[in-house]
Every structure is written in structure tokens, then in C-alpha cells.
């Protein structure tokens, strides 16, 4: 089956990101195609490239990247939710006249229409809230 995940919790503040990552790995392990993890609401903080969790804790950002690298899962971040929360890629940073950026590939900033399409086109969408 074709799956998508919607993640709306920030890493570390709530367990949502851990649950979503565990679920994502299990979906793939059962032979399904995981199309996309869509980050919305506080979930956009999962895309923060400067995250530096303590070394004895799982590094969630790296976990998402591994999922992309190993299984081709796209990592889509709602652009409006991200900009409000201090997350922007290089393109947005230059558009807003800011030096520096806080989101980089393989995370992509996309419109909310992507979520609507995913939700209706995939066989299953599973949401993890904060």
C-alpha cells in the first residue's frame, strides 16, 4: 500500500516525532511504500538543521534523513507553518533578506496543497499529533 504520515508535534517536546519515526520504519519494514512524511504545525521543527540533541538521545533529524536516503521517502514541510516558526531554506532566506537558513535538503518547503493531495491520493494517511 501507499502510505503517508502527517506529523504535527515538535521533536523532544512531545513523543509524537518518536512515534512517527517508529511507525515510518515499521511501514517500510512491512513492505509498504511510504511516499512522504508531511510536517505541519509544530512538526515543522523536525526539519531544523541546527538541532543538537544530547548524544545519548536519538537524533530525530538524522532519523528522517536516513528514511529519505534509504527508502526515498520525501520530507515535505509546510512553508507557511515553517516561516512563522523561524524555519526557512536558502531560497526563502534570500527572499526575506535574511542571512543564513535553518532548513536544508532533503527537507523541502511546500504548500499545504501537497498535504491535501497526499491525504486523498495515498491509500493511508496516519497522523501523529503533539
Amino acid at each position, binding site marked *: *500500500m501507499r*502510505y503517508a504520515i502527517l506529523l*504535527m508535534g515538535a521533536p523532544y517536546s512531545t*513523543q*509524537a516525532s518518536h*512515534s512517527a519515526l*517508529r*511507525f515510518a520504519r*515499521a*511501514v517500510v*519494514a*512491512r513492505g*509498504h511504500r511510504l511516499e512522504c512524511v508531511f510536517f505541519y504545525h509544530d512538526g515543522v521543527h523536525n526539519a531544523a538543521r541546527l538541532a543538537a540533541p544530547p548524544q545519548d538521545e536519538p537524533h530525530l533529524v538524522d532519523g528522517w534523513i536516513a528514511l529519505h536516503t534509504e527508502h526515498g521517502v520525501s520530507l515535505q514541510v509546510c512553508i507557511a507553518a515553517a516561516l512563522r516558526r523561524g524555519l526557512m531554506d536558502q531560497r526563502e532566506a534570500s527572499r526575506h533578506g535574511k542571512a543564513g537558513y535553518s532548513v536544508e535538503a532533503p527537507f523541502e518547503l511546500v504548500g499545504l496543497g501537497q498535504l491535501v493531495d497526499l491525504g486523498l491520493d495515498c491509500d*493511508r*494517511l*496516519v*497522523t*501523529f*499529533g*503533539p
Partner: protein
Amino acid sequence: MERDRWRGRETGGETIVILHVVNKAPDTGKTLEQVLTAMSGDDSLLLIEDGVLGSLPALADRCAGLPGRCYVLREDLESRGLLARQDERFAVVDIEGFVSLTEQADKTVSWY
């Protein structure tokens, strides 16, 4: 009686099943009440994260109207030291079981 209430909601021959996933404890807001309001007789309920507290015997009665359709996530019971403390009306599933439930249901609705 509680069972009849659920049965009354079944829609003819149609079997449209929803898996409801709850990650909040029964004391945290109206989440569990809202799920129970929105559930149909052929839906299932899975408790994860802090939601697993809802499977403790002292709190499990709210789900008693759903025999055979209540699940609780093993790893979240385990990390909290609650494995084996859950009410017997809940079936314990692991993360693969969670995926399997989402396969079986037509759609999954999460409440948080």
C-alpha cells in the same frame, strides 16, 4: 446495553471501518470523550503514548462498550513500567501490529 448503543450505529451491510488512535491520557482534556462520541460500532480504538494510561483498570471502563476492538501499544506500556498492568479488555499490539491495524481499517483518525 452499552453494546447495543454501538450496534445501533452499524450501517447495514456496509463495513467502513475506522481506526481511531488516541495519544492522550483520559485525564487530559476531552480527547477520549470526543473519540467515543465519534466512533461507530465497527470502528477500533488504539491507545498510544500517554494514551496508554487509559488502559489501566481504574480508567478502562470508559472503553468497556467496545469489546474486542480496544488495542494498546506495547512499547508505550513498557517504557512507562505499565506492561501487564493494562485491563484485560485491551489487546496489546506492537508497532507492526499498529501498522497492521492501519492496513485493515479503511482510514485512520488520530485524536490528540
